[in-house]
């Protein structure tokens, strides 16, 4: 009655919605419980009042949210989204799409379930501790890997997170038990010797190296499926017992889960005799003792089986014991009829899984039992395995697939492929080739294609500078999904959306790119050009260096007398002052333990001239005619035309890098230099000029030569990636130098196309994240207008605007002053 009334009112309400949304609602309602229908309509209505695209997103994710968090969770999750939607439509849509950190995080919090991904590392470390070898934890759907343990991707069996986590833990502990207690130490020679001794096997076993010992052994049995099932039951039983015995802490939870598994076992009524027999064995293996109604004819075999099983319920039981028990049980089970026939008499049997009296069964016991029952030994009925015990996961008997090896070779292949063609050369580029002699532009580049790419990039940026905002309709990557890793050297990062005050998950893709090598000439030329500065910087650094190992004077105790203090002291004494005997000095050694990453802005905007005057006189010409620019760039590269004072931002960046390298090599800190540029969120490129682990060499010098302006400046992901690189270092002090023109701008780096604030806030957030991770950042720019941006980006963090390279020597020791302290 109530249901009918509800259905009518729901239909009436649906008429108030636009037809497409009403259809979507109907579809969703088929997927979710009836009890939430009315509330769902209310929520959809409320959302519709704010934004109709948001409703569609909401309806799309709604069944998933209900599945994870239940109706109550949906309510809280939705309310949060509606509130956000009221503030900003874009953020709200993103939220309902489950595309933001806050949205995903809240759902995770509301859901009692546990996702494997959130605890994978924890479980992996736990397993590593238990058995000492790296054991990957894989989702249960993945292909076979015998060195792994398998867990479901998501568990929500229980109403709370800790209980669901415990389920994972018990599952992992059981599967790791197979490794710890020797399931995989099965040796076929031992097992076959056992068979020979029992008179069951005659002649040698075929040598077959393609499969595991265990599988080869099981295949020796006529009914290998039955043999496998029995082996699994017996071995799982042994592992369960040993795990509970050795890990008493988890014992209680383990037993609870076993009891649950026991209560979930299927009824025996519909089984064949053999199936019933196996089913009782599974129950026995769950260390359940109990009274079960079974076919009366099975009583004797089951009592015997129970006693055979007891053999593995012992602290000393090994895989050999399991094998022996399994052989015996097979002898018994293979003779029990497998055909489903009517069973006349049912009688309760009481079995105890751990009998007290020690028992060694012999094959003759089995024969005796079977003789009485007079079963036909050959029964051609198909074999049905007993239902799986879920918490026991997967006990892999098959040979290990070489997944990891295959993967690693795959990685290498892809890497090389990737490195050789970073970007497909377009036809436009070829046309450009006719007009301009780009070959000479980056003369020493080995790969001609790469040269085109660079030329193309610089050109396209020059053609459509970012200051003329991109048309909004092209701005489609803004409305998008989270990205995925598409090559081994690419990394995903979240991006901060200041309007939503939330992260957009896996929003940017950073690719590590090789940088072509030019000639070391630029490096040497810069050193020559600034010979005086180089000397000055070195002088300052040499002064800086001993400061790290300075003498501490006037101590009560030390390495030696501090003569001045001693003379003072003696004079004081003679004069009758009771002055303090602080007359020693000591050298305090401060170990430098510093890693520095330099992030070099290679965006198109660095093509600009430092000096406003120069910019006004030359800039406009280039902006309108790229050919002039390229002709200039080409001769500029060869150093023919460039008057000394005609410096672009990138030139100063390169020169300062040269001087910095010189200085850093003097004091021996580990440092990495990375150039960055971007084209949309999918393509943030990080050029490896010198990796942190790499030693300084001529190749590094040559790479500096190839630094040329490229595309946009998406600073956030570049900073996050450099921070990640620094995090991999073990140094105590980690520093990030951002050398830029200070203007983050990129295709769709912002909600409405080019929105400076968005980019600035994301960059600022990336720097804050770096600080939280113990990385100190400093921004350095040669752009005189940099103050405007850097002030906002850096906030209370340090930044320097240098007028010209001449001021670098004066500034460097200051910078390094705080690096050392």
């Amino acid at each position, binding site marked *: 009655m109530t249901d009918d009334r509800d259905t009518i009112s729901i239909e009436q309400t649906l008429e108030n919605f636009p037809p497409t949304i009403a259809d979507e609602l109907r579809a969703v309602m088929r997927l979710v419980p009836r009890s939430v229908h009315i509330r769902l309509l209310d929520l959809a209505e409320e959302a519709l009042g704010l934004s109709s695209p948001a409703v569609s997103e909401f309806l799309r994710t709604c069944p998933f949210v209900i599945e994870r968090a239940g109706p109550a969770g949906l309510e809280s999750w939705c309310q949060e989204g509606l509130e956000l939607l009221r503030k900003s439509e874009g953020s709200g849509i993103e939220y309902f799409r489950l595309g933001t950190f806050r949205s995903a995080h809240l759902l995770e919090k509301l859901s009692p379930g546990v996702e494997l991904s959130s605890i994978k590392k924890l479980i992996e*470390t*736990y397993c*590593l*501790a238990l058995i*000492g070898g790296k054991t990957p934890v894989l989702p249960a759907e993945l292909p076979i890997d015998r060195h792994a343990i398998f867990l479901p991707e998501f568990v929500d069996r229980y109403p709370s997170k800790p209980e669901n986590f415990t389920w994972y*833990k018990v599952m992992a502990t059981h599967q790791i038990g197979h490794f710890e207690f020797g399931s995989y130490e099965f040796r076929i020679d031992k097992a076959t010797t056992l068979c020979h001794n029992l008179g069951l096997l005659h002649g040698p076993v075929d040598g077959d190296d393609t499969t595991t010992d265990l599988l080869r052994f099981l295949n020796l049995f006529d009914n290998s499926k039955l043999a496998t099932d029995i082996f699994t039951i017996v071995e799982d039983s042994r592992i369960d017992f040993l795990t509970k015995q*050795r890990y008493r*802490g988890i014992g209680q939870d383990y037993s609870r889960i076993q009891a649950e598994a026991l209560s979930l076992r299927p009824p025996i009524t519909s089984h064949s005799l053999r199936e019933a027999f196996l089913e009782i064995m599974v129950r026995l293996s769950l260390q359940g003792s109990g009274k079960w109604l079974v076919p009366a004819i099975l009583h004797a075999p089951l009592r015997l089986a129970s006693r055979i099983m007891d053999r593995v319920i012992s602290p000393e039981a090994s895989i050999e014991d399991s094998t022996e028990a399994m052989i015996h049980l097979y002898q018994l089970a293979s003779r029990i009829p497998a055909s489903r026939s009517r069973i006349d008499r049912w009688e309760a049997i009481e079995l105890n899984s751990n009998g007290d009296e020690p028992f060694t069964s012999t094959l003759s016991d089995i024969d005796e039992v079977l003789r009485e029952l007079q079963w036909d030994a050959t029964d051609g009925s198909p074999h049905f395995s007993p239902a799986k015990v879920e918490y026991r996961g997967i006990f892999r008997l098959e040979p290990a697939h070489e997944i990891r090896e295959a993967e690693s070779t795959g990685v290498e292949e892809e890497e090389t492929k990737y490195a050789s063609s970073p970007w497909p050369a377009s036809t436009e580029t070829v046309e450009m080739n006719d007009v301009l002699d780009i070959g000479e532009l980056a003369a020493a580049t080995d790969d001609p294609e790469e040269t085109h790419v660079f030329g193309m990039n610089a050109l396209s940026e020059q053609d459509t500078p970012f200051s003329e905002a991109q048309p909004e309709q092209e701005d489609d990557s803004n409305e998008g999904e989270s990205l995925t890793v598409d090559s081994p050297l690419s990394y995903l990062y979240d991006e901060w959306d200041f309007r939503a005050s939330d992260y957009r998950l896996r929003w940017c893709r950073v690719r590590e790119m090789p940088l072509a090598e030019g000639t070391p000439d630029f490096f040497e030329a810069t050193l020559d050009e600034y010979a005086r500065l180089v000397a000055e910087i070195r002088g300052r650094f040499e002064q800086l260096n001993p400061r790290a190992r300075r003498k501490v004077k006037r101590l009560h105790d030390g390495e030696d007398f501090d003569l001045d203090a001693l003379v003072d002291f003696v004079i004081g004494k003679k004069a009758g002052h009771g002055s303090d005997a602080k007359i020693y000095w000591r050298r305090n*050694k401060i170990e430098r333990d510093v890693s520095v990453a330099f992030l070099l802005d290679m965006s198109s905007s660095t093509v600009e001239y430092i000096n406003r005057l120069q910019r006004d006189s030359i800039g406009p010409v280039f902006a309108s005619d790229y050919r002039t620019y390229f002709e200039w760039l080409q001769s500029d590269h060869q150093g023919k035309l460039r008057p000394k004072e005609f410096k672009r931002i990138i030139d100063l960046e390169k020169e300062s890098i040269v001087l910095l390298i010189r200085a850093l090599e003097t004091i021996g800190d580990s440092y990495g230099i990375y150039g960055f540029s971007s084209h949309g969120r999918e393509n943030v490129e990080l050029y490896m000029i010198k990796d942190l682990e790499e030693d300084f060499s001529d190749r590094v010098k040559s790479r500096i030569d190839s630094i040329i302006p490229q595309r946009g400046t998406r600073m956030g992901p570049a900073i996050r990636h450099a921070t990640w690189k620094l995090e991999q270092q073990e140094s105590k002090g980690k520093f990030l130098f951002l050398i830029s023109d200070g203007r983050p701008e990129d295709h769709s780096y912002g909600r409405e196309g080019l929105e400076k604030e968005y980019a600035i806030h994301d960059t600022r957030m990336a720097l804050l994240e770096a600080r939280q991770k113990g990385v100190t950042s400093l921004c350095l720019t040669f752009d005189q207008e940099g103050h405007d941006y850097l002030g906002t980006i850096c906030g209370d963090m340090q930044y320097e605007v240098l007028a010209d390279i001449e001021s670098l020597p004066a500034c460097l020791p200051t910078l390094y002053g705080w690096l050392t302290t």
Partner: protein
Amino acid sequence: MSAQGQGTYREHVVEEYIITEEPFYLPVKDEVKLFEAAYSQKIPVLLKGPTGCGKTRFLEYMAYRLGKPLAVVKSRSRKAASSDGQRAIPLITVACHEDLTASDLVGRYLLEGESTKWIDGPLSRAVKAGAICYLDEIVEARKDTTVLVHPLTDHRRILPVEKKGEVIEANDGFLLVVSYNPGYQSTLKDLKQSTRQRFIAIEFDYPPLDLETEIIKHESGVVETLAHDLARLGEKARNLKEYHLQEGASTRLLIYAGKLIVQGVAPRRACQVAVVWAISDEAEVQQSIEEVVSSIFE
């Protein structure tokens, strides 16, 4: 023993610090025999091994065993001699650090009123008193300090005292023992070959499960099953070494955990404070080890 406080503390002159009660030590291999042989042949010994595995305890035990005083005489005049001619061997320990100078070891002039007074450093005193001098974590000392022990560790057995223009010939009972943990020293801080090749090296590792169980049981007083569980926890935590931990859980920490348990702290909590939080600061690793703890302990 030179002075005895009001039951609060005891003060010893370094060369008179003699171990009078047998320290508890369970030999793992033949280290006792080796050390005895080295001592009688005056061969310096290098003890290698991770922290808290029993290097210092071994040395205390050896000092006691080699000196084994049948009658301990407590007097300043150093007549601590036993009836069978053996004498108690003092153990002088110096913890090395990077600011440890030659003067810190050998001695220096100190001002006293209007004049100066020479004060022997611990090494000089050990050399004179015929003590076992134990330089703990020798690699931490500066290279110029390390070189100082060279004349003492070959056939010469002398200690030059530059400031006084003297040379001290070592007392027969003197033996130099150094310890070194190869695990966490960087290559920068490796021991020079010219130094390390003056010592025989005895390698230590954490004791095997059964021995460690017994050690924990003896030292902390916990019951056998708990001692066994603690030893197993140690074994498991050591599995994480090189992957997530610099050092595994030391026997010392496991004993601390045992002691806390004896004092009534719940086993899981005791392991948390004595083991989990002590060996790692990384939240994720801590959590994983805590899961191991909760699997092992009820």
